[in-house]
């Protein structure tokens, strides 16, 4: 049961270049696109194969807001903001979310006519109640830490919430694409015990561990969804899920498998919609004596042929990366100063040092394959690597306690610019390497404190260059994830340039004749 997001999925930090002061926007349909020449039609049922069990739809659960399940959770709890291209965010149920120049004072304006599925209005009061519930320790929500950054919330009128943050955060808007922005009713639940939502669909049937069925929400604010019903079947086994799609038992499935994407591309009855969903790297424990030397780390980076790694492990899907902002389109640095592949240069440094290291990886086929390929590459440079697969449930604990020398790490937290602070600032909660560089800290803080795009890009470049020089991690590749679907789907949101893979079920349509 692969999971693309081993770490970042528990966080709901998302993309984002927050909009500049005062800018607002209505939700555009630019992300919708027809995927076939057949016209989309109203009605019908779509069956979607999920890659994991869903025990609850409550947004407070860390599982419900993982990327593979967003196609379910956003259908019921449509978020205030949605992912746009190249790490940006756009208003969805919100009319706008803007900040002042300091990025500490934010103003959320709701659309008119928002209602929960029972018809009760969704106003600023309900937004605040939802956020407070997520921040309550009794709720046990993974979004508690996000709520903790909010110093104060006010509701000057029914459509407005103002936020005062404890520290500047130019990417605050991105956090409303997941748990924080998926507003649940705190006073009413459906017959299955889940809080009511304001999305295009509501839960009409729930069989734990098996399936969820949604029907249209008659009180939905926006354009009526195409589909009458959406059924989600929980099929954790990737092969079984793919066979179910090919046999027609399901119409759409999440996939992170390069081989499945390639097989589907050759099948005329299927089509693929995918995007780089996560970045993989090798964390280096800088407290280890062998890795404390920057010249060794640079040489390790030079020993890795990232293009070859992408070809072997990702079958050419995905792309090599060399900095934390590699997926973010226009703001990605042009030159991250990261060591390029040069086996001879790597050998000249490493062979004489007789280095022996353990490379931990999650016990999944794709991660073990990547670790094995890295072992081979580093072995050619004279480094003796032992690959140690570790059970997923234990992996994060091991990283947090520093019980590793090298560790394969896959995350989607870098799908927006704010992600770098978690990994690379000296106090970052995911700074498992122990890296500390005041230049990086200052640059990332500067990027977070301004909504000026050119200043942010310059700060990202400064941080990337410092990281490229110090090499606290060995960058490898970005990997694709997305959806494989039947050809009978005529309309599907265009996620090809997104860094957060989410598709609103309300925008999916079957074609005429299906």
């Amino acid at each position, binding site marked *: *049961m692969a999971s693309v997001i081993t*770490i970042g999925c*528990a*966080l709901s930090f998302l993309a984002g270049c927050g909009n500049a002061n005062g800018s607002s926007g209505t939700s555009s349909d630019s992300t919708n696109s027809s995927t076939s020449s057949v016209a989309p039609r109203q009605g019908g049922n779509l069956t979607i*194969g999920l890659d994991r*069990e869903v*025990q*609850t739809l409550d947004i407070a*659960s*860390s*599982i419900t807001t993982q990327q593979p399940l967003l196609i379910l959770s956003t259908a019921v709890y449509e978020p205030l903001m949605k992912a746009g291209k190249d790490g940006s965010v756009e208003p969805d149920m919100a009319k706008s979310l803007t900040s002042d120049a300091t990025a500490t004072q934010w103003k959320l304006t709701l659309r008119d006519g928002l209602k929960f599925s029972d018809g009760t209005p969704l106003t600023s009061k309900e937004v605040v109640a939802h956020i407070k519930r997520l921040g309550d*320790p*009794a709720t*046990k*929500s*993974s979004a*508690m*830490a*996000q709520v*903790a950054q909010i110093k104060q919330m006010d509701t000057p009128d029914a459509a407005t919430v103002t936020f005062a943050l404890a520290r500047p955060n130019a990417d605050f808007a991105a956090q409303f694409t997941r748990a924080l922005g998926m507003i649940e009713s705190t006073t009413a639940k459906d017959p299955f015990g889940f809080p009511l939502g304001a999305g295009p669909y509501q839960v009409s049937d729930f*069989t*734990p*561990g*098996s*399936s969820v069925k949604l029907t249209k929400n008659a009180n939905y604010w926006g354009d009526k969804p195409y589909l009458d019903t959406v059924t989600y*079947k*929980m*099929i*954790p*086994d990737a*092969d*079984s*899920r793919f*066979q*179910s799609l*090919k*046999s*027609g*038992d399901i119409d759409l499935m999440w996939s992170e498998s390069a081989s499945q994407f390639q097989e589907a591309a050759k099948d005329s009855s299927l089509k693929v919609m995918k995007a780089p969903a996560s970045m993989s790297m090798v964390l280096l424990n800088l407290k280890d004596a062998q890795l404390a030397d920057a010249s060794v780390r640079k040489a390790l980076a030079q020993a890795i042929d990232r293009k070859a790694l992408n070809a072997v492990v990702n079958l050419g899907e995905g792309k090599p990366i060399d900095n934390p902002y590699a997926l973010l389109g226009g703001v990605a640095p042009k030159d991250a100063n990261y060591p390029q592949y040069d086996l001879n240069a790597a050998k000249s440094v490493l062979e004489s040092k007789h280095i022996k290291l353990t490379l931990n990886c999650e016990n999944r086929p794709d991660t073990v394959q990547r670790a094995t390929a890295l072992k081979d590459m580093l072995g050619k440079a004279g480094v003796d690597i032992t690959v140690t697969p570790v*059970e*997923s*449930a*234990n992996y*994060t*604990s*091991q990283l*947090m306690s520093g019980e590793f020398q090298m560790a394969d790490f896959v995350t989607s937290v870098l799908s927006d610019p704010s992600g770098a602070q*978690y990994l690379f600032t000296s106090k970052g*909660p*995911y700074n498992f390497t122990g890296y500390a560089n005041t230049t990086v800290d200052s640059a990332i803080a500067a990027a977070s404190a301004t909504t000026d795009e050119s200043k942010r890009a310059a700060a990202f470049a400064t941080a990337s260059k410092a990281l490229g020089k110090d090499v606290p991690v060995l960058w490898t590749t970005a990997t694709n994830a997305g959806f494989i679907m039947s050809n009978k789907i005529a309309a599907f949101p265009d996620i090809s340039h997104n860094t957060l893979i989410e598709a609103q079920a309300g925008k999916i349509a079957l074609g005429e004749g299906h």
Partner: protein
Amino acid sequence: MRKTIGTRIVRSILVLLVVIVAVNHLVALLPGDATMLLLGQDATAQQRAQLRQDLGLDKTELQRLGGWFGGILRGDWGTSFASGRPVLHEIASRLPVTLEVVLLGQAVAVILALLIATFSVRHINGAADRTLSGLSFLMLSVPSFVIGLLLIYIFAVTLNVLPASGYVPFAQNPGKNLVTMIMPALTMGLGEAAVYARTLRGSLIATMSQPYMDAAHARGASPWKALWTRALRPSSVSFVTLVGMNIGVSMGGSLIIENIFGIPGIGRLAVTALQGRDIPLLQGIVVFAACAVLIMSMLVDVAAYLINPSGAHE
């Protein structure tokens, strides 16, 4: 017999106590932090400590054992960390699914085993017997997940006559329910049938060599009639024991079948609980599985006695 049952009950309770103590200790040894999986990595140490306290994870192993055992006696098996629902409720919601898969699978296995074993014995050492023996070994050798994926490929993908995965509750649609159960039942049944057939064949051969079988033939019973009416019953003790024990073990969930066919049974629930470090749920499932094995074991002994009261049963 009564004394035997009484002794078995006492022994079973003792075994269950050992299981409870053992599983409590084993989950304490599991690496990984449930609070990290529930709250995510960016939760503060204080938040994780508070959650540990709320979930009772800060207690000693002995305190947790006492609390849990007391709860079991009161009928409270704890609350799932992930869903917030009572553990017994979670298990009960999955039990009918697993029960259906197991019973249908075992029905397939028993029917196939009876046919294969009796036919083999009737044509012992002949071409049919050797062929069936070879097929039995083949079925034993092929892992169940291979059988399952092969069935999906043939019947779902190629012939498109059966659904590749999914489950429809019986109460919702009996017809669709049975259709979705065909391949899972076959996957379980084919592998088990091979074991049962070999066991029954061996027992039948031993029975067929008894003098009373010659007497039956002498009195005019046809070979098939003698086999089914005279030989089968006394040969069934080992067979019934094996089937019963397998049912008990399978009640803990057949993970491979449930995973391949997308069936929400107890096996999948157990893996989800393990991966999420949902300790109350995990413990509850293990104790439930132990209870199933112990109960089936007792029922099997009673059945063996009823089949052959004159045999030594202990």
